[in-house]
């Protein structure tokens, strides 16, 4: 990957100039890239990972780093835009990072992974959930510290079919990558089970002011349960307007809606809403430790995917430390074989790169709080 090998003699002087500016290789610390949305409208999904990684690396460096070398984070921002992701991925490659923590969203991850694969770099995402990232088998150096959409959909449909046991289910989604993916899996699993009928499968428009037409349609379909794949702004709008139109079908949503903001916005309409989310980690000592550190540094509660970001950073640092060398193959092997302690407890990774030990649970809003649903 080194640039120096291919420079034309004529331009050697110019190259020297550049080389003298860039840090010399001898004292180079181990670089790890952090790629994701650090600005723009989706920054609230990417920044917690970044802060988490910084906290972990601070601790690691305080203890002497990896194999005696200090760890340095290279932060790159792509605002969850695929075209920007391809650009920052090449930046990380040319910066010679040993691994990448990222990306935040699935689309940019898809755009960046071929570049990391070709360059031989391991990537570990705290929040990209599209199943095919791991299941397609195309990216053997890709890992994640979040369960994929199909597992979430499985948790969701199992709960709905067993505990709520409706006959008719309506599925809505926000036409986005995440929401549509989840909705599609939910439809598939419900169809396979044969226990209930999907009477409606519709996409809604994000940002639309009024959903009453689609709500009347749900009402007519006679669905007892509404499953929604998407994020909390649309989820709260839907559930509020459903209640206003006197439709009291049970509302079930996903991790995107399992957010404090959902409860605040939907208010009393949020009561009794189900949402899947990662297994409750609040009692884990690592979670408590890092949440406190974050609160001390930033003066606020960390946002989405903070635990996942911590887990990804801990896992990749552990793997780099245990691996025979920094080549992608060795690091990947270490990730698969070495167990690591994270806010989710002890985890490792299966042959696809999906985490073993991070699962989903169903939560329900009770008295203005999400509690684990029984």
């Amino acid at each position, binding site marked *: 990957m080194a640039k120096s090998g291919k420079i034309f003699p004529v331009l050697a002087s110019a190259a020297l100039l550049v080389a003298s500016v860039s840090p010399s290789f001898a004292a180079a610390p181990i670089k790890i890239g952090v790629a994701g949305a650090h600005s723009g409208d989706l920054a609230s999904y990417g920044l917690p990972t970044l802060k988490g990684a910084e906290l972990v690396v601070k601790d690691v460096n305080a203890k002497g780093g990896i194999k005696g070398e200090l760890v340095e984070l290279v932060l790159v921002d792509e605002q969850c835009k695929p075209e920007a992701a391809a*650009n920052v991925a090449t930046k990380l490659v*040319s910066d010679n990072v040993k691994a990448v923590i990222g990306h935040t969203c699935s689309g940019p991850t898809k755009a960046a992974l071929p570049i990391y694969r070709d360059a031989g770099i391991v990537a570990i995402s705290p929040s990209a959930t599209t199943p095919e990232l791991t299941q397609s088998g195309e990216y053997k150096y890709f890992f994640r510290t979040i369960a994929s959409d199909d597992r979430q959909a499985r948790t969701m449909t199992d709960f709905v079919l067993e505990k709520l046991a409706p006959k008719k289910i309506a599925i809505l989604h926000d036409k986005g990558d995440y929401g549509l*993916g989840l909705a599609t899996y939910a439809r598939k699993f419900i169809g396979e089970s044969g226990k209930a009928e999907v009477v409606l499968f519709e996409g809604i428009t994000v940002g639309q002011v009024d959903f009453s037409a689609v709500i009347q349609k749900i009402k007519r379909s006679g669905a007892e349960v509404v499953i929604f794949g998407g994020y909390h702004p649309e989820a709260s709008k839907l559930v509020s307007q459903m209640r206003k139109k006197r439709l009291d079908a049970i509302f079930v949503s996903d991790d995107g809606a399992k957010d404090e903001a959902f409860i605040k916005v939907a208010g009393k309409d949020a009561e009794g809403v189900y949402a899947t989310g990662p297994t409750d980690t609040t009692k884990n000592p690592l979670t408590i430790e890092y949440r406190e550190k974050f609160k001390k540094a930033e003066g606020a509660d960390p946002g989405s995917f903070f635990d996942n970001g911590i887990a990804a950073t801990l896992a990749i640092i552990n793997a780099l430390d245990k691996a025979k060398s920094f080549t992608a193959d060795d690091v990947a092997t270490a990730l698969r074989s070495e167990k690591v302690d994270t806010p989710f407890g002890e985890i490792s990774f299966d042959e696809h790169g999906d985490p073993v030990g991070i699962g989903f649970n169903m939560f329900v809003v009770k008295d203005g709080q999400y509690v684990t649903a029984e």
Partner: protein
Amino acid sequence: MNVITIKNFRNALVTALWFMFLTFPIMVIKVNTTENLIVWRWHNLLYVGATAFTASLLTALYRQYRDRKRSQQQQEEGTSRVSWNERFFNTPAIARPVCALGALFFLVFPLLFSTYQVNIMTTALMYVVLGLGLNIVVGVAGLLNLGYVAFYAVGAYTYALLNMHYGVGFWVALPLGGIMAALFGILLGFPVLRLRGDYLAIVTLGFGEIILLVLKNWSEFSQGPGGISNISRPGLFNIQLSMEATLNYQYYLTIAMVLLTIFVINRLQNSRIGRALFALREDEIACQAMGIDKTTIKLTAFALGATWAGLAGVFFAAKNAYINPDSFTFLESAMILCIVVLGGMGSILGVIIGALVLILLPEYLRAFSDYRMLAFGAILVSMMIFRPQGIVANIRQSYRSSKDGAP
């Protein structure tokens, strides 16, 4: 002499007070209704006041300067005013070495800078192509198209889908992407040609939205919001290239594309068709009265502009190897339009500078990333107020009669 009069001062004071009032709720009070918190930020009021005061004084000074310059020019009536770019191009002693240096810079760019910089530059160059394409429609023919990105999407998806289903390579897809986009351009052109000005704008905007929605919703066709990944990168005689080499190769391909675009558009502008397009912008009625078929020429403009968007789309898909509908939103259309207007409508050099500035500036302003879009909006407004002709004003070609003896 520039003098700040008492009146200027008073105006500035009034402006400052007005803006302090105006921004009071949004700037000073920050409510967090999820936490039921109110933060009072009185210091912001001070900043707003000071900024508005200074801005008002500066504007007053600028107005004085402009009026003085105007009256000077009126005194020197008869000597025609020459813009800086005209002077630049008419002085070969300066223009040639500068152009040569510029060309050399772009030629050796990948050798001097990291792959990341090369990649960014490739992106910027793609926007040069897009800008030049839209320039035909908006800058030259004066048809406001707010859905230009739709044709970009058509090109990108043409390649991505052909590549996914039939393994069609970049070089075959390139012309196909251009043709598909041109067909869409004509398809859109037919119904909307009767519309004038802003009606055309809103219909093209709607067209852009329709294409985007179809790409999002029709998953069986377009893979939906998940997008299409693993699109082949452009090949070079079946040689396996390293990633860095591929990126450099793409860079040079894009440079070639830009050169081809400039060449074609330059020739078009100074041709029968190009003149007719210009005339269409200047005066539609006179244009028809001079025997120009309005419909044909408008369709030509739409198709030409669309072709370039289609070609750029194929490049985009090949460069990123992954596309999804999110890359083709209205904001992208607005961005390309801004490149054209900011650079200077109808001016090739202007559009190039506009694209490089608008795409590269934000990349290097990452430090101010939060304020980037704020500054972008402010720059657009102030550019329109202080320099509406754009960075580089358009210059008209001069023709020489064969009887004058010139070539």
